[in-house]
Structures are given as structure tokens and as C-alpha cells.
């Protein structure tokens, strides 16, 4: 016989203001099975929990209903409380009379009646609750980091230094990400490579880290603690085990006219290449789309003629060139994943008024970084792409692809104000005779030393800031005319410029949405990952065991990205510090007598928890892998033969709830 205790919480005045809690408690005493009812100001407080524990002992309760808030926050609290009193924690049910009642109603009488009805239903349910036991599963203490930018590097290093094995997957031939492309970093003007490359080297030499560049994640199966991941290792056509990175192949490669991705098209590279001198690994890949030898082999297969090259193969001192090398798929197991897939800059060719990306002297901030960098295509000389001349007047446009609903980017990209200020300062350092203009909407310089930096650029370096968006750029006599408005003075402005730099905003990295779908995590309309909670759980995704860092969840500067990476690393270390993971016992269960083996459940299960089992006599039926099942209930709804049931939410329990409400 169930002996049910009902406890009604006031939640201060959150519930008590609209619900007569004492009256509700009194009313529940008449419900079937209820032997005790009480109300209290704060049940979640230690005194409130004691009240429940004492009542269980005193009234020999074997079921408990806590009528209070949503179970989201305090279900664990009350389960623990009843467990301490010797009751199975799953014999406690919560009735939500706050979010579902007091907060959404104004009439005290109606709300009191509704609260009573809610509790009536839960009492009917709890009477049919069975004791459940949580299961434990093992976990693979290995981390997969997706993305080798500064966020991925930091996360990998932190977790590896804590003693766990890490695999870092990066889709380009080198790690380093966008930070490696930068010349200096704001507001300290640290040389970006000088602070980044030591980390890159540390990562490549770390005994706990396996580095996989030129590789992509193909599929992710499994669940927290036990992910099975397919990784595509793209063919490099170079055997990295024997290659010494001597540089002969990329120095001698005759195909020298490939636009360099690393230099954002400002420079050229060879077909066999390393993206930049400090690349990690410092060994080349052959870009098969442009390599003459690969193209020759492909043409031969088609029966066409194309000149043979094989220069690198002939000259390689270690015979590391391998034309037979194919893409390879590696399957590996991981306990956790950190997604640090970074960002791309906005493609400004959608702006006709800025020349559709076709004016050679209208470049992006990232392109300017490459021009200013000593290892860049111009060896650090800032020249106009059109004629190679030094510019005197340089105009910057902030918010290109940011704060612009028309191009689908209403958000602020956060870093552009600062990097533009940095550019204006650095240009002046490059050539004191350069005059810079910055057209801006607002200056957003929230960060340590950021505002001071922007002021310095205007006051000391004489950069002319003009508040207003530029409406039109057009070429005239080898120069560019920029038309805007000084909204402070309320007058139109026209600047004659030699070079225009667009502060293009941050967008989700190319392929971000595909990656999120592959992993199974939620993302927003822009392709940025949704955090589990934007304030309190900012580095967790809504999938257990998958974490995020850096621009994967929206625009961030370097310090923010690094902080997030370390935060995600701590979460992973916390997970890996356990030897077993406790799984929720509220999983599906198959009544194999009723199962007809249609396996509709297998089709609908998003977690691949349904397995096949052959009974004696040859009948094939479904079986649920409880450590994989998340208790979503899809299979229960799909099953036509009512063979499936969800523990803790059985059909019988739910029917009892509905019946209780209808009969009242």
C-alpha cells in the first residue's frame, strides 16, 4: 500500500502570494494513499529537507510528492533528501505549482484550485512509481578537439597537461588558425606569431597529444564518455613519417601561381606547400587540385595528354613523395569533444556600393594583416594591390557585415573596432605620413586597456574618426572616392583614398552547420553553437560531453577564446576524473513477449540505443542498451504493440494521472 506524503512549498512569496498553500495541503489529505500533508516556506532549505526526512520516518511514508518549482533545478535536491531517509530516490515526484501555476495566474482562488489538481495528478502517478536504480558505465578518458586555432590549441594543451590523451583534428595543413595570420594583437601590440608559435610547437611535441592536420570529422556516434568518431585524413601525397621538412619540394615546385589561402589571396604559393614558415607540422602537403603531377596522372587515366612534372618526387632526398597516398578514414573512441571550429570573415562581395569585392584597392582587415606582416607576400610593406605604390590616405570602414540586418548579420562582431584601431596605429608606425580615416557607427572597446588604446590612436596617432556609415565607394583617377556623412557635424564627407580597408565581421566558419549536425549539437540561425546556458554554462553544448571554445559560439577576441578554452578543458578534466558515469535509470524497456520485431523503434531512436536480440526459437526482438538510451520516449510512442515502456513514465503512470484529473 502506498503511504504518500505531500509537501507544499511557499517558495517565499513566489507560490504563496497566489496559492493558498496551507489550504492546498489540507485538500490533498483526502487524496487516495495520502497519509500526511504539510506546507513550508522553503522546502529546498536545509530545514525544509529535514521536515521531509522526519515525516518519512514518523509517518512511515513510502512515496513523496514535493509540490514546488520545476524539477529542472531541485529534483536532485529532493531525490537526495528522500534517499537520505532511506527511500528509493525515484519514489519522489515533483508537482510544479510555480512555473505551471502561481507565476502564470493572478486569481488566488483559481490558482489554489489548479495547484490542488496538479498535485492530485502527481499523487496518482507516484502511487505507481517503482524503485529504480541508476546504472554506471565506463568512459574513455580521451579528448577530441576539433579545430587547431588558439582556442583548440589552448584546450588541447590544458587537458594534455592534466595527464589525459588528446587528439586534435584540424582541416587545414597547419594549426595556428586565424591568430597565426595576424601581425600584431590588440591592445598590447604583441607580435602574434611570437606568442602563438611556442604554443604550436609545444602542442606538436606533447607526449599526450596526437595531432591530425589536413583532417576532418566525418561522423560522431555514441554518447558522453563513449563517442565513436570517424576522422577523414586527407591525402597529402607526402609521407610525413619520412619527410624531414627540408623544403626542397616547395622551393622547386614549378606551379607557383596558386592564390595563398593563408595570405587571403594577397600572395601566391606553390602546389606543394606549407602555409607559412612556422607551420606546424612543418611538412608540406600537395594541393591535388593544382599539383601538375596529380593532374598528369588524372589526365592519363582519362586517356588525355598532359605534361609530366614529378619535380618534387625526383628531388626529394628522403623519397617521401607518395602519389599513391589516398584519403583515409580513421575510427577512434573519445570520452569528450571540444568544438573549437573558429570563424570566417564576412564576404563583402555582397556590397555593391563597396564594389562587389572587385576593386583591387578595397581590401579586408585580414588582408591588411598579411600585407603588414614581415613574412607576408610583401615582406611587410604596405602597398596598393593595384599598382604596388605606397598609400598616403587610407580609409577604414567598420561594421562591414556586422550590425547590418540587410545582409543577415544584425549582431556586433566585437573585435572589429579594436583591430581597426590597431591597423590605424600600425599604418602610422609603418609610415608617419599616412593619414587614416575610420568610418564607424559606435566604438565598442570593452576590454582591459581597449578604450585607452582607441583614444590613443585618435589623440596621439591622429587617425581621423568619422561617425557614419560609408554609402558609396567609387574609383576616380586611380584613387577611390569614399562618400559618407559626419553625423556629428551633420555634414556629408568625401575622402579621396589610395587604399580602403573593410573591417569585415565574424561569421560562422564555413561548414559549421554541417559539423554541428554531424556531432548533434544545437546552433543558432548564424551557425554559432548554442550554449547550454548563456551565462551559467557557457562552454557546454546541449549534448553531454560536447564542449565549445572560441568563436564557435559567436564573436570573441583572443583573451576570451583562450579563457573559454581553459574553461572547457576544466569541464573535460572534471568528467575524466570519474571512473564511471552514472546514467539516468529512466530508460526504455522492451516487453519481449509483446515485441513483434518490427524495429520501428530502431528507426526512430536518435541515440542508436535499440539492439536486436534473437530469442530461443529464432524470434528476433528489440533490446534497449540502457547505457545509451536517453529516455526520450520516441520508441515508446512509435511502438504499435505497446511492447515498449519508459521507466519512470510508464503508460500506466500517465494514464493514472489523466484519470485522476478527469474523475475529480
Amino acid at each position, binding site marked *: 500500500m502506498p503511504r504518500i506524503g505531500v509537501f507544499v512549498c511557499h517558495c517565499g512569496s513566489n507560490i504563496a502570494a497566489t496559492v493558498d498553500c496551507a489550504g492546498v495541503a489540507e485538500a490533498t489529505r483526502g487524496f487516495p494513499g495520502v497519509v500526511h500533508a504539510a506546507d513550508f516556506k522553503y522546502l529546498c532549505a536545509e530545514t525544509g529537507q529535514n521536515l521531509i526526512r522526519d515525516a518519512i520516518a514518523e509517518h512511515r511514508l513510502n512515496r513523496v510528492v514535493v509540490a514546488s518549482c520545476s524539477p529542472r533545478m531541485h529534483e536532485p535536491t529532493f531525490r537526495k533528501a528522500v534517499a537520505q531517509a532511506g527511500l528509493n530516490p525515484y519514489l519522489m515526484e515533483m508537482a510544479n505549482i510555480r512555473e505551471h501555476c502561481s507565476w502564470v495566474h493572478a486569481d488566488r482562488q483559481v490558482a489554489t484550485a489548479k495547484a490542488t489538481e496538479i498535485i492530485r495528478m502527481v499523487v496518482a502517478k507516484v502511487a505507481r512509481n517503482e524503485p529504480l536504480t541508476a546504472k554506471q558505465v565506463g568512459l574513455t578518458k580521451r579528448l577530441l578537439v576539433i579545430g587547431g586555432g588558439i582556442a583548440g590549441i589552448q584546450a588541447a594543451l590544458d587537458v594534455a597537461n592534466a595527464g589525459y590523451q588528446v587528439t586534435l583534428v584540424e582541416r587545414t595543413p597547419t594549426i595556428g588558425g586565424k591568430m597565426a595570420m595576424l601581425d600584431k594583437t590588440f591592445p598590447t601590440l604583441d607580435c602574434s606569431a611570437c606568442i602563438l608559435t611556442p604554443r604550436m610547437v609545444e602542442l606538436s611535441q606533447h607526449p599526450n597529444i596526437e595531432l591530425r592536420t589536413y583532417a576532418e570529422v566525418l561522423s560522431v556516434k555514441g554518447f558522453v564518455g563513449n563517442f565513436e568518431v570517424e576522422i577523414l585524413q586527407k591525402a597529402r601525397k607526402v609521407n610525413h613519417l619520412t619527410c624531414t621538412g627540408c623544403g626542397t619540394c616547395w622551393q622547386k615546385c614549378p606551379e607557383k601561381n596558386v592564390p595563398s589561402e593563408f595570405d587571403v589571396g594577397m600572395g601566391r604559393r606553390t602546389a606543394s606547400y606549407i602555409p607559412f614558415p612556422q607551420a606546424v607540422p612543418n611538412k608540406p602537403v600537395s594541393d591535388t587540385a593544382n599539383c601538375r603531377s596529380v593532374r598528369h596522372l588524372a589526365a592519363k587515366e582519362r586517356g588525355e595528354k598532359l605534361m609530366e612534372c614529378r619535380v618534387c618526387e625526383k628531388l626529394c632526398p628522403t623519397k617521401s613523395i607518395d602519389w599513391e597516398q589516398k584519403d583515409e578514414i580513421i575510427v577512434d573512441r573519445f570520452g569528450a569533444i571540444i568544438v573549437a571550429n573558429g570563424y570566417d570573415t564576412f564576404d563583402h562581395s555582397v556590397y555593391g556600393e563597396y564594389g562587389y569585392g572587385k576593386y583591387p584597392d578595397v581590401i579586408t582587415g585580414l588582408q591588411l594583416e598579411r600585407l603588414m606582416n614581415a613574412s607576408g607576400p610583401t615582406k611587410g610593406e604596405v602597398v596598393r594591390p593595384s599598382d604596388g605604390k605606397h598609400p598616403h590616405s587610407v580609409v577604414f570602414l567598420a561594421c562591414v557585415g556586422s550590425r547590418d540586418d540587410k545582409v543577415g548579420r544584425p549582431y556586433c562582431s566585437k573585435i572589429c573596432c579594436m583591430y581597426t584601431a590597431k591597423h590605424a596605429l600600425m599604418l602610422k608606425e609603418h609610415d608617419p605620413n599616412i593619414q587614416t580615416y575610420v568610418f564607424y557607427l559606435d566604438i565598442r572597446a570593452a576590454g582591459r586597456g581597449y578604450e585607452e588604446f582607441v*583614444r590613443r590612436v585618435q589623440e596621439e596617432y*591622429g587617425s581621423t574618426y568619422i561617425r557614419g556609415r560609408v554609402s558609396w565607394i567609387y574609383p576616380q583617377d586611380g584613387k577611390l572616392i569614399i562618400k559618407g556623412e*559626419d553625423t556629428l*557635424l551633420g555634414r*556629408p*564627407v568625401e575622402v579621396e583614398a589610395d587604399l580602403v580597408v573593410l573591417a569585415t565581421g565574424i561569421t560562422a566558419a564555413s561548414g559549421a552547420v554541417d559539423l554541428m549536425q554531424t556531432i548533434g549539437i544545437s546552433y543558432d540561425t548564424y551557425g554559432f553553437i548554442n550554449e547550454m546556458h548563456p551565462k551559467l554554462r557557457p562552454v557546454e553544448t546541449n549534448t553531454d560531453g560536447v564542449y565549445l571554445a572560441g568563436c564557435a559560439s559567436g564573436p570573441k577576441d583572443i583573451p576570451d577564446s583562450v579563457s573559454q578554452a581553459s574553461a572547457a578543458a576544466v569541464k573535460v578534466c572534471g568528467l575524466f576524473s570519474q571512473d564511471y558515469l552514472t546514467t539516468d535509470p529512466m530508460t526504455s524497456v522492451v516487453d519481449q513477449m509483446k515485441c513483434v520485431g518490427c524495429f520501428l523503434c530502431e528507426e526512430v531512436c536518435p541515440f542508436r540505443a535499440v539492439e536486436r536480440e534473437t530469442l530461443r526459437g529464432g524470434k528476433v526482438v528489440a533490446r534497449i542498451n540502457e547505457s545509451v538510451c536517453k529516455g526520450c520516449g520516441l520508441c515508446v510512442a512509435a511502438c504499435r504493440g505497446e511492447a515498449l515502456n519508459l521507466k519512470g513514465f510508464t503508460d500506466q503512470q500517465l494514464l493514472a494521472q489523466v484519470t485522476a484529473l478527469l474523475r475529480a
Partner: protein
Amino acid sequence: MSVLKFASTDQPGRNGLLALVKAKTGQDVLACYQCGKCSAGCPLSSAMDLAPHQVLRAVQLGQRDLVFQSSAIWLCVTCQTCYTRCPQEVDLPKVMDALRSQAIQEKIRPAERTVKVFHDVFLGLVERFGRLYEVGLIGGYNLLARQPLASADLGLPMLTRGKLELIPRRVKDREQIRAIFKRAAELELEEITGQSVAAAPPASVPS
């Protein structure tokens, strides 16, 4: 509205107007970040064609015509409200003063002629008598401002009640006053020519 044009060789970040104000006042107008607090508190900004922060903005952009032809620089009464409140500590009244004096030096016709007339008459009387001669100020100002009968209804009552003295009073040591004006003229000349005109002022002159 006239377009503000910048050629590719221009250097608005180091324009002559900025340098001029800096030399005359020591103020760095680039420090102004255009929050508008000065204009919001200015008792006269509603009467000005450019609000005070816009005067600074025009200086930042080297817009000489805009600045020197504005009424704002003449309407400012240097009440110091703006400076007291300025978060960037730009001494705007000092800048306004410098702009007025520069406009006079360059013989630019002031947008508010009568303000200049008032200053001229006032200082002329102080130079002559060592202190203000009110009847002279009223008469001189009204004549030069071409409004001889302005406020005439107030003149007689003020005279009969002894508020105005017909005979000007003079300070005792008019030599010192003259020395001050002489030195001021020399400084002004120095500023224009860039050369030192006179030796150090006599010790008796209060600095």
C-alpha cells in the same frame, strides 16, 4: 550643406587649426570624443549655429571656414559650465577665446558683429581709465552697434537714482594699466610674427 572634402594628401589628423589651437591654448582638441555634454549644458547653444561640441569637431577636421564663420565662437560667454563638466577635460572656453582672437587677427568678419563691438568698446574704456566707465560703454556700444536708442528708457531712471555716473573715474596708477595693454599687444604680435618683440615685462607689472 557644404561637403567636407579630403584629398589624398590631406592630413586632417594633424591639421593647421588643431596645431593653432594647441599653440594658443595648450589644449588637445583631439581629446574630445564628442559626447555632447558641453552642448547639453551650454546656456547659449540653442542660439548657436554650431553647438559647442560641433565647434570642436570642426577643429578636429580642420574646417576653418566652418569655425571662423560660426556665430558660436562669438556667442560663447565663457561661463565655464562646459569645462567644469567635460569628462575629457578639454578647456572649451579657452579654445573659444583662441578662435575669437584668431578670427580678429585674420580680420574675419564676425558672424555676431555686436559682440565684437562690445568687446572693443569695453576694453577701450578700461585701457583709457583703468576701469569701466558705464556711460561711455552704453553710449559707445549703442552708437557702434547702430542702435542709438536701445534701452534709452532705462537711462534716465538710472541716472536720477544715482546708478550711473556721468564723469568717468580713473585708477591712480594708469602707467601700470598701459604697461599691461602694451605687453598684451606685444604678445599678440609675437604670436603673429613668431618673434619675440619686447624684453621681459617690468617688475612692477602684476603678472
